[in-house]
């Protein structure tokens, strides 16, 4: 038994961590799109050089075949730096195209997605909390397919949408992408509404909808767990330097206990995400249950931790210029996508033999 990352995964993680540490400064992200958009371009260029968009595609299809766990490790790094990138979606889309695309889709998209020349976005939500494959009402026979809250749609060249008849892929050039006028909650990951004529879309073969949905659950779970951990660490570091009543606030027991509770909540969450990623890679029977539970748990604990971190900071944590809110909103975004935690726990319950059996 070995419950840890492989040396290869650790090396990948170290490389990405160096890239992010050198390029992403949390305080800069508070300045919004003017900083974030060029940063996204720069990061995605470098991530493509490192092979990130090819991580999930099997070696038989020219990818790295390193599994979802490796992508989850990247999601962890992106979450803790609130890195503005949609490379994980592109990597997952490349996998879906490789597994389910016909020759034309593969010929047109696989290589560009794996090299970072093209980006993809997943159009799943139909509004009112509808995100999961068994809830998709859009049909391939509909004249038009409409989806909302599509992360990364603005920068994508390929849209993969969920329908009651399976996944379909459409070129973004053939779709209407409408970003709302308001600022996104999580400025690092703007969303848009997407619609396209179904005649412009091609189906992906096989039942990939659940696989894609489960993979996204795991990636958002890992992202949130890491953002929560980073928020906790910020509160800890702040408590070491902020002085009141003539001493560091971190020397007060009230503060220590609050921070200890936060660490106890958030630190183990990452391992639940690792397991869910591993299950997606290796234990298909348990993948949907594990992904649903990991997402529900990680995002709830991450938001709880992020809010506690703001409270631990005091007034400075409530200001826009102090970047803690970037991490909190990152976790909130993760919580708000792909279905509510209550719904995901119900899905997990139905898939847990001990709970579900009469």
């Amino acid at each position, binding site marked *: 038994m070995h419950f840890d990352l492989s040396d290869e995964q650790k090396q990948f993680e170290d490389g990405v961590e160096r890239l992010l540490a050198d390029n992403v400064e949390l305080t800069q992200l508070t300045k919004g799109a003017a900083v974030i958009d060029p940063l996204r371009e720069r990061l995605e260029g470098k991530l493509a050089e490192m092979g990130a968009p090819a991580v999930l595609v099997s070696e038989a299809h020219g990818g790295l075949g390193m599994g979802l766990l490796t992508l989850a490790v990247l999601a962890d790094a992106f979450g803790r730096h609130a890195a503005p990138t949609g490379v994980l979606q592109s990597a997952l889309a490349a996998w879906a195209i490789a597994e389910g695309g016909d020759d034309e889709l593969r010929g047109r998209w696989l290589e560009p997605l794996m090299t970072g020349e093209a980006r993809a976005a997943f159009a799943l939500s139909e509004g009112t909390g509808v995100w999961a494959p068994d809830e998709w009402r859009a049909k391939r026979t509909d004249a038009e397919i409409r989806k909302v809250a599509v992360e990364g749609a603005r920068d994508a060249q390929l849209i993969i949408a969920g329908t009651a008849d399976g996944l379909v892929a459409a070129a973004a050039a053939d779709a209407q992408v409408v970003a709302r006028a308001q600022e996104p909650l999580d400025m690092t990951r703007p969303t848009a509404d997407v619609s396209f004529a179904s005649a412009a879309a091609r189906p992906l073969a096989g039942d990939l909808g659940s696989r894609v949905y489960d993979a996204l659950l795991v990636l958002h779970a890992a992202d949130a767990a890491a953002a929560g951990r980073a928020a906790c660490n910020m509160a800890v570091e702040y408590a070491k330097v902020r002085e009141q009543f003539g*001493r560091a606030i*971190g020397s007060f027991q009230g503060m*220590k*206990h609050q*921070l*200890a509770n936060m660490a106890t909540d958030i630190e*183990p969450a990452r391992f639940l995400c690792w397991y869910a990623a591993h299950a997606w890679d290796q234990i298909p029977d348990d993948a949907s249950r594990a992904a649903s539970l990991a997402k529900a748990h990680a995002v709830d604990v991450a938001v709880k931790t992020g809010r506690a971190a703001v409270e631990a900071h005091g007034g400075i944590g409530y200001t826009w210029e102090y970047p803690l809110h970037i991490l909190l909103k990152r976790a909130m975004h993760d919580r708000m996508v792909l279905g509510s935690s209550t719904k995901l726990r119900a899905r997990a319950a139905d898939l*847990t033999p001990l*709970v579900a059996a009469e």
Partner: protein
Amino acid sequence: MDLEYSSEHIAFQGEVRAFLEDAWVKPMKAKPADRKAFVREFRERATAAGYLCRGFPREYGGSEQPNDVMRAQIIRACFAAARAPMEVPGNGVTMLAPTLLERGADWQKREFIPKTLNGEYLWAQGYSEPGAGSDLASLRSRAELVGDEWVINAHKIWTTLAHNATHMFILVRTEPDAPKHEGISYLLLRLDQPGVTIRRIEQISGQSEFCETFLEDVRTPANWIVGERGQGWQVSRTTLKHERNSIGGERTLRLWESLVRLAKSTDVDGRPAIQNPRIRDRILVLQGYVDAQMYSGYYQLTRDIAGESLGIHPLLNKLGATSIGLELANLAEEIIAERGLLMPSNEGSGQRNPEQWLNQIFGSLALSIAGGASNIQRNIIAERGLGLPREAVQ
């Protein structure tokens, strides 16, 4: 990442299972006449086979096995599945014997370890005092060397199962003029002698596992001291190094599983509690914490085997498990509802009636206090784990 056992470990697992089938499961089905004698004999066989007392040399009654946390984990899992007893429970095997192995004189190891491992000596722990709980080092019980004997005057509390114990290991102040931590010695004594008064403490659960122990001019030989005079605090910090990293999270998982079974077998509003969406959701909320902690345990085990740093994670285990236990109790209380208005009977404890959960409901509180109360755990996490400034303590 690989959650399977290697072929070597699968073979070992088969070996342990076969042993248990032969030495425990089958004979138990035949209902041995003298259960106590049978258990003692079983422990001897399991030790001879290398499954119990693995960290202790053969000359002291152990099985002297190389440090192998994976095998230790397999043994625990197989014994739990077969409901077979492991080492003699209590402080003697988990605390005193490892301490003697590390810090005891050779004659003490020969004299005390074998009889502790085989259950002949049962030990009470004399640490806490009415005025020294979380701040243990402020203890005031004392001993003086008079001739070739220590004369002990002590008032100890929470001496678990002292009324059954034959011996006690005790922290007493022997150097009254030395600084707080440096004036303490670690002594051993027999409990069957004049001057020893043991009063059982009735707990909120209705049980009495804990005792208060008064020692008035109680005597013990001068050489029944572990380590030197004034080193008792250090000696008491000695922990079991051999295969110490059991996966605590698995015990919590078992508890969660029994909560699910309770929710399936107990009706709420005329149907099984598990079908109530709110209860079902809370059970799944708990599962998130339970599983996260268990996988953290797997991670710690893996890192331990590889000799790599475990980071902050081991420090979080107790508080995490305690918090889960408290919330499990909360939910169990909601499920058993009016069925918990009567205390569980002490007879027929094998049966899991709903009111039996009162034991867990109260026991979860005991766990949040024993072995370092939760607020002390939080201090430890904050100071040793997160690097926050240490409290200025006296």
